[in-house]
């Protein structure tokens, strides 16, 4: 397994290089010119040249790309064009907020949605299956933004159960993320339960389930010990690819609830051409994605004895 892991880590190098090249090309071809955005319409040629030089954008593109590669290797992405803050400080301030916003509903949601998926798959074709299908499809048809606006209006403004928005560092910040947690769980319950139901249905109609039933295995044991275990491969894949998105937070949620996380930082950087922030976040995400892909393979081998890593 160790040689497999080393090989996969080495494979990540060309992948990250490709991502770096793509990000660099996109920024320099289709993105906003950060100097013009910063200086506005009536900047003098002199001030444009000054700022371009200060940000190193006057150097030839290959030199700029090499500098970018140096930043990737040293994990030093410099300072934001927008605010001149250190990228490391910005990430350190934003990541805990994003993780606090996304991790708890992700974990609770996973447990809840897998359980619901199992339950509904077990009662396939019953009134519970039909009603839940109808409800979940209705829930999936409503946009994320509508959930945010509606829940904020009803639960925070009208009923006063939660703060409308805000943020405080540390434990005190928890109360500001309670309503966003509920909304995230509400939004994900429809698509997730539908997916899990389908995964489990494939398993419940498999031959081994019929054999287990014939041998007198109880329904609960069959569901949790056999069906759930055999559905683990797609479940793990789906769960693992969701993990990198957690660090990005939920951009709309952050904006509407005044949470200073990474998602909002990323969107602001896109609109203002803040290349250092974009570079840093994209490369960190690419690294996490690659890491999660490797971890997914390792988990496959752990949950399914048929899988071996060579």
């Amino acid at each position, binding site marked *: 397994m160790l040689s497999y892991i080393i090989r996969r880590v080495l494979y990540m190098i060309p992948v990250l290089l490709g991502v770096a090249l793509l990000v660099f090309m996109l920024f320099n071809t289709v993105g906003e010119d950060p100097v013009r955005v*910063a200086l506005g319409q*009536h900047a003098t*040629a002199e001030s444009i040249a000054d700022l371009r030089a200060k940000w190193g954008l006057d150097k030839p593109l290959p030199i700029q790309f090499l500098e970018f590669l140096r930043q990737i290797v040293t994990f030093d992405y410099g300072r934001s064009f*927008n605010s001149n803050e250190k990228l490391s400080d910005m990430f350190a301030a934003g990541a805990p907020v994003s993780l606090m916003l996304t991790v708890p509903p992700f974990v609770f949601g996973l447990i809840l949605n897998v359980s619901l998926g199992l339950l509904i798959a077990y009662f396939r074709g019953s009134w519970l299956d039909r009603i839940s299908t109808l409800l979940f499809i209705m829930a999936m048809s409503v946009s994320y933004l509508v959930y945010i606006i509606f829940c904020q209006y009803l639960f925070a403004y009208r009923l006063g159960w*939660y*703060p*409308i*928005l805000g943020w405080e560092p540390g434990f005190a910040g928890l*109360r500001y993320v309670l309503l966003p947690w509920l909304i995230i769980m509400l939004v994900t319950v429809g698509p997730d339960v539908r997916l899990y139901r389908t995964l489990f249905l494939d398993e419940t109609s498999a031959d081994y389930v019929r054999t287990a039933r014939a041998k007198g295995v109880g329904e609960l044991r069959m569901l949790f010990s056999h069906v759930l275990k055999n559905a683990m491969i797609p479940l793990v894949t789906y769960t693992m690819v969701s993990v990198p998105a957690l660090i990005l937070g939920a951009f709309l949620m952050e904006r509407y609830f005044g949470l200073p996380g990474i998602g909002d930082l990323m969107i602001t950087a896109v609109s203002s051409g803040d290349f250092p922030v974009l570079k840093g976040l994209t490369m960190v995400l690419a690294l996490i994605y690659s890491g999660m892909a490797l971890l997914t393979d390792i988990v496959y081998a752990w949950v399914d004895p048929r899988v071996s890593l060579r």
Partner: protein
Amino acid sequence: MLACSLSWAAACGTNQPGGDGRKVFRYGARTGSAKSLDPVKQFDAASAELIQNVYDTLLEYHYLKRPYELTPSLLSKMPELSADGLTYRFELRAGVRFADDPCFPGGKGRVLTSDDVIYSFKRFADANTNEQSYVLWQGAVVGMDEFREQTRKLGKAVRYDRLEIAGVRKLDAQRFTIRLNHPNPLALLPLAASQLAIHPREAVEHYREEFERHPVGTGAFRMKVYSRRGVVILTKNPDYFGVYPSEGAPGDAQRGLLASAGKRLPLLDEVHMPLLEETQPAILQFLVGQLEWVAMDRDNFLKMAYRDERGFHLKGDFARKFTIYSEPMLSMEYFFFNMDDPLVGKNRALRQAIAYAFDNAGFISEMKNGRGAVLRSPVPLPIAGSQSDVEYDWYDHDLELAKRKLVEAGYPGGKGLPPITIEYRASNTSVRQEFEYRRANLAKLGVKLVPNFQTFSAFLDRVDRGNFQMMSGGWQADYPDAENFYQLLYSKNKRPGPNAGNYNDREYDALFEQMKAMPNGPERYALFAKMVSLLERDVPMVFTYSPIAVGMNQRWIKNFKRNMMIDTPFKYFDLDTAKQSKGFY
């Protein structure tokens, strides 16, 4: 999960301030993150609204008087001008101190001196520190442009103690002079801009890069918490020198705006400024009494307010709970014609036809809910010499006249006229709706208007290259003087300067140069009228409208008057804490 989160949220309920008598103002219109709190490194509204509370400038705009008027801030009196009109003599207010900060020996803020002013001027002029706002004072002060050039050559090796600005001279610790290149009545205006806020050398040297996040000023407030993307908290500077003005504009006394006259500023203990990027949650927070001041966007205005011939009003229950304010902004929207374009640039009658066809009053009423004023000159209404002071001839929407002009242009009913392309700097819904309105205006004339929605930098590239027929633009006053708007059509400001249409008329230029050196008054206004008549003849630009800022306040705010030159005049505000603590729920 729901029950658990509810009990937690209930246990941590929000307390309404005011109960303990402390005056805490919660600002609901901070919509963007500040770029930098270093005065010379910022040129954005989000930074300026913080800087103007923690730093001071030599001059500031009078809080109440209109038209906007300069008044001393760090100065003991207005500067004196020499007989030749070239040298200003300044005297600093005695005893003004910088905020206590670890950058000073013993952490105790010291007294402001002329050296701080000269140091701040040097940093403003230094090409290595100020890439953005030097244009505000470019060419005005003797030796300042040369100083800037030297700093550019020297780079980081520049030493301010070895390099002087020839026109800035220290007389003593409290007094200094500035010599101008030419007599210029506008030369003092930048001294009220946040980029020329006075700051101490110790703080710059102590904090280095972090000075952008660690302001040390003489202002009415000190930075207690600075979270660029969270809540900023300002706390009262107990040693602040300012007092509330005892004079105002007509009607201010009746509206209670002089009730605090002569009181020591600031009147608030703290100001909380959360970052509120979305309007909807800000409005909800305002409605439950957790914010004192919010701006209104189009959707909320439609729901909560209306405009009639007497002004702006809130509807129903909103009127009982809140107050509404409106104030003309110091900006204008326009369309430029590219005067070098072989079609629109060379056909005056075609431009005149388009000017007649644009229905600006309808646009303001239908697309802006009345939150704007039709312009008859390039100058927004609150600025001296605008249409409030002078009667200008300009194009009123008239489809029949537009059709006649189109015949004169050689395109009766639009026949034979190729589509005209108009450039936009964005592609959001609001811009698209604006275009649709203009497209419909010209369609009635038989003229086909085609949009080019693009990114900001693509738009700038196209405009700078002169590769356009018409472009949508806007101008926000750098300072409240008509010159700042008439210069949009001055030939020496042609592309890539603000005269993007490359309008070039000798008579206009001569009038511009003449009025530039004159004080406001009938003589100057007569020149404005001549300039507008030239613009009416040539139509290099169609003025569309000047926006009006509209927002809401809680009824417990005192001394609120929207001042478009001071975005966040917190030092003048006061609160009725008894009412605030009760809220209305």
